[in-house]
């Protein structure tokens, strides 16, 4: 929201839609993407290369986050 400088001591702020306001659809998209990314992080920290594996039977991610997987309470070997 921007205010136009007017003469006088008390400028009336222009009423307009904030340029940062997002449409309903965009809000929905942003929330969905966030949820997807967060669940992906949860999955890769806690589940991948254990119960299921997205990228083949490697153990790289599993071994990298191994200690945190145990410590956060996920089932592990």
């Amino acid at each position, binding site marked *: 929201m921007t205010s136009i400088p007017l003469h006088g001591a008390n400028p009336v702020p222009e009423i307009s839609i904030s340029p940062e306001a997002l449409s309903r659809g965009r809000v929905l998209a942003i929330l969905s993407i966030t949820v997807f*990314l967060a669940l992906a992080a949860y999955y890769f*920290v806690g589940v991948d290369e254990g119960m299921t594996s997205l990228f083949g039977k490697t153990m790289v991610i599993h*071994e990298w986050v191994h*200690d*945190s997987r*145990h410590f956060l309470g996920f*089932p592990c*070997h």
Partner: protein
Amino acid sequence: MEIRTILRGAGAGAIAGVLAFVFARIFAEPVINKAIDYESGRDDVLAALNKAAGRTVAPDGPEIFSRGIQSTVGIATGLIAFSAAMGALLAVAYLVMHGRFRIRPRALVWMLAAYGFFGVFLLPYVKYPANPPAIGHTFTIVQRGHLYLVMVAASLILLAAAVVLARRLARRYTMTTAVVISAVAFLVGYGVLIGLLPSLGDLSANVAATNQFGYARAATETPQPIVNILSTPITVGGVTYQPGQLVYPGFDADVLWKFRWYSLLNQVLIWTTIALVFGALLERFLAAGGRQKKNKRAETPTPAPTEEPVPTA
């Protein structure tokens, strides 16, 4: 507005993750190292026993990264990623829920964080608690993974249902009655849930494994003492063990307790930090006008800074 709120949630989560990493370095890693020492010793004994008895020897797990990597950047990655993800989810939950309750924004954030702590961690943990390395059989990881995720999902659903029920009942009864009824309903539902889901020791693969060295019948997968289960003496490393004689002790109960206690404290630390930091960041953000940069209207402070009505009492 939405993106900035989410960034604040994820940022609060990242801060929580860093604190959790410091906590884990100090408290968890010594316990994890003890557990791994036990596991190594146990695996050596099992391999020697199985070899001496002419049974199949289980292969070792892979060692892709050194313990030095796993116990530093490895655990930091996992803790920070998990915490940031939970912070982002909390921000999404806030954006979906805000404006529906007559409470301060930060109070809503705190309640949602409590919901997350109980649903994502504590309620599943009661049934399937955190285990250090050495606990958890490789051949049951699929069932254990499914059971754990079912427990997380069911906990979140039951808890949400209890809150909805309490709000419905509060229209007809007093708040106390509504909360007590829904709490009892929740405990009944939760009790049925943890009663129906199997104990890990009762999984068919674990029952089937009881005829092997080191796998006695038990309620959990916590390593049992290794005894000579054969009907004849067995000689391993120059020592002869009679039938039924102890070869290697079970998992140290104190190490297990410490690991689980620290795991619980670590999650308390994560969710509390997310709640406090995100709550504070959010209210500061909303007080600054939400949609505009602070410096633009610094000279005209808005009288009602928060998005939601602040209770007057």
